[in-house]
């Protein structure tokens, strides 16, 4: 469904903004803005503030996650930062350090 894949061997340092879904398998440092779904896969490293639609994390994130929808931290995820979303799940095996703001 998503046409944008940032592959495992790739490092982006800077600002990424997209009006479509993104799959991250590589490394992003800087800022990440996605209008649609974002998947941070196992092995991916994101050192950035993230603003997106639904976010699924199985990789490593250092930075704040803000979602207009939901955030799912899956088994193997490692997140250091604050999470802001309307719904959040933290799976068994996910590591998370930070605050959760569910905007209630």
């Amino acid at each position, binding site marked *: 469904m998503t*046409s944008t894949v940032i*592959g495992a*061997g790739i*490092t982006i340092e800077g*600002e990424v903004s997209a009006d479509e879904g993104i799959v991250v398998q590589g490394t992003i440092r800087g800022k990440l803005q996605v209008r649609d779904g974002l998947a941070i896969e196992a092995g991916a490293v994101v050192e950035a503030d993230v603003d997106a639609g639904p976010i699924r994390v199985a990789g490593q994130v250092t930075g704040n996650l803000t979602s207009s929808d939901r955030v799912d931290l899956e088994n193997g995820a490692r997140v250091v930062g604050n999470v802001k979303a309307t719904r959040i799940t933290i799976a068994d095996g996910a590591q998370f350090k930070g605050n959760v703001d569910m905007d209630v």
Partner: protein
Amino acid sequence: MANGSSETVLGKNVRIRGRISGDGDLVVQGSLEGDVTLRGDFTLDEGAEATSTITARGVVVAGALEGAIVADAEVTVTSSGRFRGDVRAAQVTIEDGAVFAGRLDAEFDLPPELMSEPGKRR
């Protein structure tokens, strides 16, 4: 979408400002502002725009690129491609219809009949 070969595709609606580096191949369909250093091939698709210095193995320009290209292998500016800047590569192809403005530095040996021409500069 083979899993082993690491290809990165930045879709039409993706904008990047910054540096990109890596091992695999990269296809840009959206817009890019910043330098690219790759061990694989770089492709700027038709409709895509970039302002960058591209260092890669092979480079295909089918979109609009402003900047420079340094390639170990072949550089192709396709019929839909527009390029402004300098190119250094082992082999360069500019297709019919392509727009090219800049310097071209391809490493090749001149045929002997040209080598012996007296019209040497300097």
